[in-house]
């Protein structure tokens, strides 16, 4: 039976065009460090010049032989670590495509890899990737297209002095692309750019003050996206209301994993507290279901910041993390949620930690999902149901309550204002009566009217009609009643010109603070 084969050129293309942003490429290297039991990953961008990028960890490292194997055809073919394998500190294995190291190729044309493993021979190698690879692939250039494999570059061993190298692996770019440098350098000149503080908590406050990360530029976006997608803890257990991430954060802290970029110790860029309208939250306790014989386990939270748009925009939506690594960023479609929730959808954020499953639903860039994968569908339906029943329904009720409360307050204020206007004119204390009297002459046509009585105790009683008896827009009714009231006051004058004068005067006073 004839076989269906995929040409190696496909893999070669992937080595140059897999990730959609620098943060995504770096995130893959961070995942490698996590799986290598590193407790710290240090990323350097050469801020504010951006002439180089480097990632160094203090993990297990890998040997010269392992490197040879990866470079000699193992890219994209790395032995995936077992999902049940446990790493240091009980970390789950992230696993990878095996192309992570070459992910940096989207940013630079050559780089140096140094690794000192705890067991075995370390090495230092300079990797040079071919220029214009895509063009060469498309033209079937014999330099790169061979019978069985595709050369995407070459590497050279460099002098390796074990005594001067720390345990772990480091990758340092040599040839960062000028477009990357230019873009990052220029973003520091944006009007809204602020120097990122080394204290991440302060940095998160700056980010919360802008509508979009784009206002702050590419460097801030890189920081934020890495912080959002890497398996680092939150700033504290209390960054979200109702202890939403308390348990999750304990787990993250127990993994002992730090990502430090240009001296900034990254934490998740989430800090939502003290919103005047409060929050509607739903904590997703660990869910588990078997789909086609495979377990899908997840937990997380959904949160609506009542009445206030989330800042930055990039925090809106739902972030899915598979084994703690963010897949893409916050999905503003809320996993293709099909209801229009109006402005409320701009108040929603949430994170789903998928502890098992969903890996087969990942697209090759690990930045997105196959939306028709049964495991993804299960998570999606669960979340949509909770959004509908536990989040937006509650949020809608709260909006109504807030709206009613607001209306009541406005109504009371206006009523008091009307009293003041009449009282100032008559020099009498004013009381509104709920007893409805009707002008007998108009009774037949049922036109609501106002009656005014003076009591013995130097008091004026104004009988107002029920607002719903007025046949006009709801929003005009209170004003209509008030105008009728001042009209009646004006009618108390004897002369017509005086009536006109008083009415105009009272009307203008009334409208002054309506």
């Amino acid at each position: 039976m004839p076989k269906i084969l995929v040409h190696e050129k496909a893999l070669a293309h992937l080595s140059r065009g897999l990730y959609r942003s620098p943060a995504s490429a770096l995130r893959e290297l961070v995942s490698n460090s996590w799986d290598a039991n590193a407790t710290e990953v240090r990323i350097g961008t050469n801020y504010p010049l951006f002439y180089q990028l480097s990632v160094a960890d203090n993990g297990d490292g890998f040997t010269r032989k392992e490197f040879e194997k990866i470079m000699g055809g193992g890219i994209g073919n790395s032995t995936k670590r077992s999902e049940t394998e446990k790493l240091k500190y009980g970390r789950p294995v992230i696993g990878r495509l095996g192309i992570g190291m070459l992910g940096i190729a989207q940013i630079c044309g050559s780089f140096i890899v140094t690794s000192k493993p705890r067991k075995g021979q370390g090495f230092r190698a300079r990797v040079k990737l071919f220029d214009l690879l895509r063009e060469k692939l498309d033209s079937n250039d014999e330099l790169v297209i061979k019978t069985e494999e595709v050369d995407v570059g070459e590497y050279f061993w460099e002098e390796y002095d074990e005594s001067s190298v720390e345990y772990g692996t480091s990758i340092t770019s040599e040839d960062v692309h000028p477009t990357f440098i230019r873009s990052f350098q220029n973003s520091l000149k944006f009007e809204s750019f602020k120097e990122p503080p080394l204290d991440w908590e302060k940095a998160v406050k700056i980010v919360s003050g802008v509508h979009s990360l784009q206002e702050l530029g590419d460097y801030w976006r890189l920081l934020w996206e890495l912080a959002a997608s890497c398996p680092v803890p939150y700033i504290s257990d209390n960054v979200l209301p109702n202890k939403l991430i308390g348990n999750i954060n304990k787990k993250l802290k127990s993994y002992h994993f730090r990502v430090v970029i240009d001296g900034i110790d990254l934490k998740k860029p989430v800090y939502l507290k003290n919103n005047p309208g409060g929050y509607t939250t739903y904590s997703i306790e660990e869910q588990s279901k078997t789909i086609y014989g495979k377990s899908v386990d997840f937990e997380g939270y959904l949160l609506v910041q009542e009445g206030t748009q989330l800042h930055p925009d990039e925090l809106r939506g739902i972030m899915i993390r598979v084994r703690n690594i963010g897949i893409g960023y916050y999905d503003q479609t809320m996993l293709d949620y099909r209801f229009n929730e109006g402005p409320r959808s701009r108040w929603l954020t949430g994170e789903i930690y998928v502890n098992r499953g969903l890996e087969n639903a990942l697209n090759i860039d690990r930045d997105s999902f196959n939306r028709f994968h049964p495991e993804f569908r299960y998570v999606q339906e669960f979340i949509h149901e909770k959004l509908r029943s536990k989040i937006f329904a509650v949020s809608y009720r709260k909006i109504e309550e807030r709206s009613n409360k607001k209306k009541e307050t406005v109504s009371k204020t206006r009523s008091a204002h009307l009293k003041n206007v009449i009282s100032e004119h008559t020099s009498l204390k004013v009381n509104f009566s709920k007893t409805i009297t009707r002008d007998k002459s108009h009774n037949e046509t049922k036109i609501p009217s106002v009656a005014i009585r003076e009591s013995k105790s130097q008091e004026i009683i104004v009988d107002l009609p029920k607002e719903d008896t007025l046949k006009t827009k709801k929003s005009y009714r209170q004003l209509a009643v008030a105008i009728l009231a001042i009209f009646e006051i004006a009618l108390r004058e004897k002369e017509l010109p005086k009536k006109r004068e008083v009415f105009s005067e009272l009307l203008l006073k009334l409208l002054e603070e309506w």
Partner: protein
Amino acid sequence: MAIDYERDLLKHHVRANAWLPLCQNRLRRIRSNDTLRQKRRLRYFTFCAVGAMDVLMLDVAKVIKPSKAGRFDTVVFFDKTNELVQKTQQRIPGAIGFPGDFVKVVLLDDPDDGIVIAGQDSLLPQTNYDDDHRVRQRQILVAQHQGFIRQFPFDVINLDLEEFLFKPSETLPGRVINAMRRVFEWQGRSFVAPQGGSEQYIDGFSLMFTTRIGPENISAEYLNMLRGYVDENLRQDTTLLPLFQERTGGIDNVATLQQENFELFFLLAMPKVLSSVLIETDWYIDPVSGITIYEFERTTPNVEPYRMLHLVMDVKRQLPIRNYRPPRAGLAPEVQQAYQAVVHQIFTRGEQRVTIENIDRARLQAHLDRIIEQRRLYCPDQDQ
């Protein structure tokens, strides 16, 4: 075995006793010119190496202060490789680090590969070339050159070269001297303090310069140049000859000194090179403090011992600045007098020889420990 520059007590003696007071004085001068509203931080250029000991020493002494965001963004440094720059930036977060060959970036020679990157923004995609490694490298080199110029001026320049100033393979006056010419020219640029305000110019800066004595196979061209400086001094000012003889133990001509005591010859002649480069680029050495020279021997296993020279000086701007002087105006009298004073001082004031016996080891060690402690604040795992 590599030299442990950062824990070397002889070198640290120079840091603590020459560099630190010089920088403290410079900061005082800046502050005395500042209005309160415009208080600005010291702008420092260095070849600090990974350990960044000089920067951290100035940080401990509060001569260099990080920004409100915690970044050493008034510190600019060069190192040879990306890896070294990245490691240094871990130790002094926020410092501006240029990876590459300092002299090559400064001089930006015409390319011999025919790649000509034109325009103000060299990082823009090129229309005439493919997106290949050589083109990208050229683009970046041009960008580094332009970017480095934008960092000027500095209040303190620490040219801690740790190598020979005159290389036999180079033609006169040598690439380092030419690089220094450009650097001092760029010191005349205006700048705006990070907190804003109007454009400012510096009226002086402090210069620390380090070089090895030698080399032994220094070319005749260089020797002629160095001899020429001292001969000219002796010719122009007859009062110098007795001083010269006293300093050299009775030798009465420069050629003999060069043959019999090359080290002293180098010590007397080399500072004139610096002084002359400064004068031709619109600066001059402040005669009040003059040039102070520290010398020590560097010994390492399996390597022939060699002698290091550390020169420290304050530099003043010639006034009116060149742009306001007519062509061929010649040197202002105070600049000429300053030059003479500095020459006198070089002939009379001997170098300070730093040996393990004449330094306060305990105090220096404690100071070093304090600096390393400070570094742990920024880079806790530095010693791993």
